[in-house]
């Protein structure tokens, strides 16, 4: 290609002034937001707890004892009491963070990539390709998430892997819809037309012009799904379709402790409290991220 008019200039002596990029501005705003920092710290602590896992447990989460069943909070040796089989509840809650967070985050990550790809392609392609993809997605979207998750899990059979697959299948349509709608908005901007006028193909345009503008909103939406995923995963375990005993998982623990709700209401509420704290932290973080990103976009 002959570009004689565009002779490269002499090497610039003055350094190029550059503005902070979009993401560094967003994180600057998040850093100044105390609520966001608080929930981020909670999430970080939970993740740390899950990673360190067995090495930091105060007791043995699997040793049962018929004499130490359903001890109240603050019992000597059992800081948060014991469950219905006399196991140390604090240890079980801490170890349970592993499976619960795993079940909460993994399906959402899969759904982010699969649903995001489907939605971006549908949104960018438009026309009948969009209609074909999105109407198919809508079929799944029409069912309530809980029912769909139970239906998939029931069909696939109990177990952690099958629960992950069914949760992913539940979230893919939701992510795809969001991805499709933001992509459709971006696609109609003049800079996409200008990129097409430059002779770029659709994949180049999606990679260089579209993704940077749609990943943010899709990411925020999927972050908000983590809490839903945790609750659904707990629900599946509660129904016996997810994790099986004696593995500690908050939903399953909530299920088995529910029988003790009259004798030890505080102890039996603890797994539920963990689910609540974790899911609300992810929700608030997603919300704060959304407002930090909303400015001039």
């Amino acid at each position: 290609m002959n570009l004689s008019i565009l002779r490269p200039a002499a090497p610039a002596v003055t350094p190029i002034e550059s503005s902070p990029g979009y993401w560094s501005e967003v994180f600057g705003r998040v850093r100044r937001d105390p609520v966001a920092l608080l929930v981020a710290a909670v999430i970080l602590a939970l993740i740390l707890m899950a990673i360190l896992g067995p090495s930091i447990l105060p007791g043995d989460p699997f040793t049962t004892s018929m004499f130490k069943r359903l001890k109240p909070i603050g019992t000597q040796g059992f800081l948060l009491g014991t469950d219905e089989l006399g196991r140390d509840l604090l240890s079980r809650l801490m170890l349970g963070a592993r499976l619960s967070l795993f079940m909460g985050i993994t399906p959402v990550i899969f759904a982010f990539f699969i649903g995001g790809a489907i939605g971006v392609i549908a949104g960018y392609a438009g026309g009948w390709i969009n209609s074909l993809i999105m109407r198919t997605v809508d079929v799944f979207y029409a069912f309530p998430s809980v029912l769909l998750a139970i239906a998939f899990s029931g069909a696939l059979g109990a177990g952690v892997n099958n629960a992950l697959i069914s949760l992913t299948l539940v979230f893919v349509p939701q992510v795809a819809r969001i991805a499709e709608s933001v992509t459709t908005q971006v696609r109609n901007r003049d800079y996409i037309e200008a990129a097409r006028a430059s002779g770029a193909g659709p994949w180049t345009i999606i990679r260089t012009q579209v993704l940077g503008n749609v990943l943010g909103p899709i990411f925020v939406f999927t972050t908000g799904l983590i809490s839903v995923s945790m609750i659904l995963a707990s629900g599946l375990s509660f129904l016996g379709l997810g994790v099986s005993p004696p593995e500690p998982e908050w939903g399953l623990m909530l299920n088995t402790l529910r029988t003790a709700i009259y004798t030890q209401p505080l102890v039996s509420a603890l797994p539920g409290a963990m689910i609540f704290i974790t899911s609300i932290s992810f929700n608030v973080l997603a919300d704060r991220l959304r407002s930090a990103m909303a400015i001039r976009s």
Partner: protein
Amino acid sequence: MGKRDIGGPAQPLLKVEQLVKHFPVKGVLGKRSVVRAVDGIDFVVHKGETLGVVGESGCGKSTTARLLMQLIAHDSGELVFDAMTVGGHQLPLRDYRRQVQMVFQDSYSSLNPRLTMEQSVAFGPSVHGVSQRESLERARDLLGRVGLEPTRFAGRYAHELSGGQRQRVNIARALAVDPRLVILDEAVSALDKSVEAQVLNLLLDLKDNLNLTYVFISHDLHVVRYLSDRIMVMYLGEIVEVGPAEELFAAAQHPYTRALLSSMPSMDPSHRTLMSPLTGDPPSPIDPPSGCRFHTRCPHAEAICAQRKPNLHLTGEEHYAACLMVEPGAGHSQSPSGVLLLKEA
């Protein structure tokens, strides 16, 4: 430059033949109809000229621009760029798009908010295989050429620039692939008057320095007159008159052109017009009037105008008008007689 010039200066740079674009719309009760946005237009763009395109909103100016850029596909007709059919084996679309570029009206929407100015400008060259480093160097050089100090502006984002600065970046972006034809679709319409003048002068300088050809689309007749060598007037998806700028302003042949010209705000308050020469909105392009499309608003309309469709007719040197009043023997009471025409020819 002339390096890619194939047919010599006399060969039109772009020849548009019977270009048609209809947009389907769903009517009530599933009745399908079409918007005749561009309905069979023929024109040429000469090498090195500026062709101004004027008309009311909805007359097909912007659709024409997008067709010329091939952002939308035409239904029928042909684009011939320097004797090569666009989209044919001699000139695939990708190569055509290196030679033709476009500047859009909305300076903000046409820049990716996540890219720095140099990245936006460098995108075109990098698509055509220029290395990343070289593309960025070229981008900085071009930013300098459009009057934006590269060290100050290369690393900025679109929201940090003013409208005029952003439009300069858009011009730099269009020039980055070294095009021969630049389509300016209302490119200065959204700018302040003072900024508009600066950008217009920049466009004129760039045209001289880089041997560019412009298709300049605007609804502002003053600006079109200032910039254009020839002017094309569109009405409801058709060309009603085309001719050299000064002649068109001095001796417009089509009643629509005359109405447009008299609707221009005068620079002299003592010459201001009190009456609006054109009343009402143009008819719908879904169901355009029969015969001459302007007959519903034309002060000279006669019965024949609703029946017979006027064709572009030579009225002076390179000056064409589509009106029965200039077509000899067309049946209009003011049509010239055939004898007169023979003498002219």
